[in-house]
């Protein structure tokens, strides 16, 4: 995060110093940095696959008999006779053309496999993000407004437990209680059609949202208490400004930055949470695809999946930083001047 937001800007006339040009320049610079980062990640994963134990040809052969002709053709096809760095450049040249090769295990193009799995992960991922933001912010606001009440203490204790509770354990408990014992939700499968899928993916979404909700609540509460502690709020109260206006205009608006930070952290945490959630609920999403391809040493698939995740992570970070620009005028200056 290159954006500094603790530096106060000049009091007057700051809007005019922010030109559209400087923001475009800022975004362009970030995109170049993103590309460099993706290059590093892909090279890292490529090296990792080379360090991995086991013979690559053996994996590529699968169950086929190892005839010398087949081995030779596989070595040629995957450029295994070339030096390591040349192999990487071959992969990179294909990847730039959006050709990530074929999955060895699934025997289909990597992009097709990802395209098949993506909708499920995206569905309950968005679902979980909505839950964690709506529930987390509401509980955080309530706890901050009723600071030191029984509700507040309960919420804080719940947040400590929610942040500490492992995703997979939460998932198992929910699965046991609501699917096996009460029978309210299905035990297995992603469902088909929107309503059915919504019903099938509710438990996974709640599971994935647990950590995020707790984090969002904790950060919203702390930020709002901070914002309401300002002298400006004290004087606004003395002036007779309504409680509602103080909460939304004086409090929440100033607490928005930490809440956006929380949203960014939650999204990043969710990438890992998705893997654990999908394994817990045996969902055929991108997370299980990654785990399966790692354990079967499906090199093209691991490369493609990690690159997809890296692109998403980098995009989330960029969006969060751009949101800072939108929300806080002070960042616009330090962000563009840096």
């Amino acid at each position, binding site marked *: *995060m*290159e954006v500094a937001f603790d530096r106060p800007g000049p009091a007057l006339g700051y809007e005019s110093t922010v030109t559209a040009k400087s923001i475009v320049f800022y975004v362009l610079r970030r995109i170049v940095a993103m590309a460099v*980062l993706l290059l590093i990640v892909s090279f890292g*994963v490529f090296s*990792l*696959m080379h*360090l*991995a*134990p086991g013979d690559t040809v053996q994996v590529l052969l699968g169950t086929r008999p190892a005839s010398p002709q087949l081995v030779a053709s596989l070595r040629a096809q995957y450029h295994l006779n070339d030096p390591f760095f040349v192999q990487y450049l071959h992969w990179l040249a294909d990847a730039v053309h959006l050709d990530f090769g074929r999955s060895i295990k699934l025997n289909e193009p990597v992009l097709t496999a990802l395209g098949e799995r993506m909708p499920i992960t995206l569905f309950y991922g968005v679902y979980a993000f909505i839950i964690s933001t709506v529930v987390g912010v509401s509980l955080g606001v309530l706890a901050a407004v009723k600071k*030191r009440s029984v509700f507040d*203490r309960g919420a*804080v*204790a719940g947040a*400590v*437990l929610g*942040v*500490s*509770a*492992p*995703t*997979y*354990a*939460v998932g*198992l*408990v929910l*699965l*046991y209680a609501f699917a*096996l014992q009460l029978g309210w939700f299905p035990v297995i499968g992603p469902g088909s059609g929107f309503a059915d899928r919504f019903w099938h993916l509710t438990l996974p979404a709640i599971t994935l949202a647990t950590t995020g909700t707790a*984090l969002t609540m*904790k*950060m919203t*509460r*702390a930020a709002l*208490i*901070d914002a309401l502690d300002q002298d400006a709020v004290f004087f606004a109260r003395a002036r007779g400004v309504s409680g509602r206006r103080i909460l939304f205009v004086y409090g929440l608006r100033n607490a928005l930055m930490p809440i956006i*930070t929380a949203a960014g952290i939650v999204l*990043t*945490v969710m*990438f*890992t949470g998705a*893997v*654990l959630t999908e*394994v*817990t609920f045996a969902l055929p999403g991108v997370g299980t695809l*990654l*785990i399966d391809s*790692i*354990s079967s*040493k499906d090199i093209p698939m*691991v490369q493609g999946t*990690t690159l997809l*995740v890296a692109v998403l*992570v*980098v995009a989330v*970070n960029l969006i969060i930083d751009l949101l800072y620009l939108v929300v806080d005028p002070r960042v616009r200056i330090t962000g563009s001047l840096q």
Partner: protein
Amino acid sequence: MSELLVEAPGTSTIRSHKHRVQFLVVAAVVFIALVVVCSIFGGSIAPYAASAQDLGTGLAGPSSAHLLGTDDLGRDVLSRVIVGARTAVVGPIVVAVGAMAIGTALGLLAGYRGGWLGSLIMRWVDLMYAVPQLLIAIVVVGVLHGSYWVAVAVLIVLTSPGDTRIMRSGAVEQRGLPYAEAAKVNGLSGSSILFRHIWPSLMPLTVAQSFLNFATTIVNLAALSFLGLGVGPGAADWGRMLAEARTLIAGNPWAAIVPGICIAVTAASMNIIGDWLYESLSLRGRAR
């Protein structure tokens, strides 16, 4: 996770607030002590041997002979939970200490010396903050078929940026304080100011951070073993038990739920202790 701290209590209510916090903290310390005892003497406390199979009993719910029931191989769940405390405690301790060592070295270097090396270190920290760390651990340990200790080593690298950030900002802050400047005026060398004066004053904060790191790591390590990475199959490990009991949850839910609760409560206890240390230490620092 220093950013996630709850606000410091106002002076007017500090007494009542402190009282409540201490009860929770005492409960957390007692629980952690219990876990530590299990991790050291687990083998002799456990009513059965952790790997002793009783295929005649097989999968069964709680009974007077097996308080938490048995798993599909007839192994006593309670014994496995007690013995499993060891991998749950040892790894996180090593990670917390390792991250503290790396974070202290890099953070002090970046904060006190600064320069291009300092900005390089902080770029690295920023990068690590932006990525899903556990996911990196999953890919690295999974692809390398790493053991438990490979997982621990990977987590040390991924955890150290938090310590680095704290040590750096601490060093930057302390560098400008009168005592540090006085030491400089007295002709002390840079390294002696850094190690004899600045480092000791930052030590308490890193200790508090280590408790929080422990909490994160126990969840992360268990997540890796839940995915079948790190700890070998059949080992008495909380994460492994969860994974293996996942399919047996209808037969004996306790086999899955108790290890899960152990992980969550251990992590929560360490978070409570760490938060409390952090709060009291930073309050003391401010009063000084």
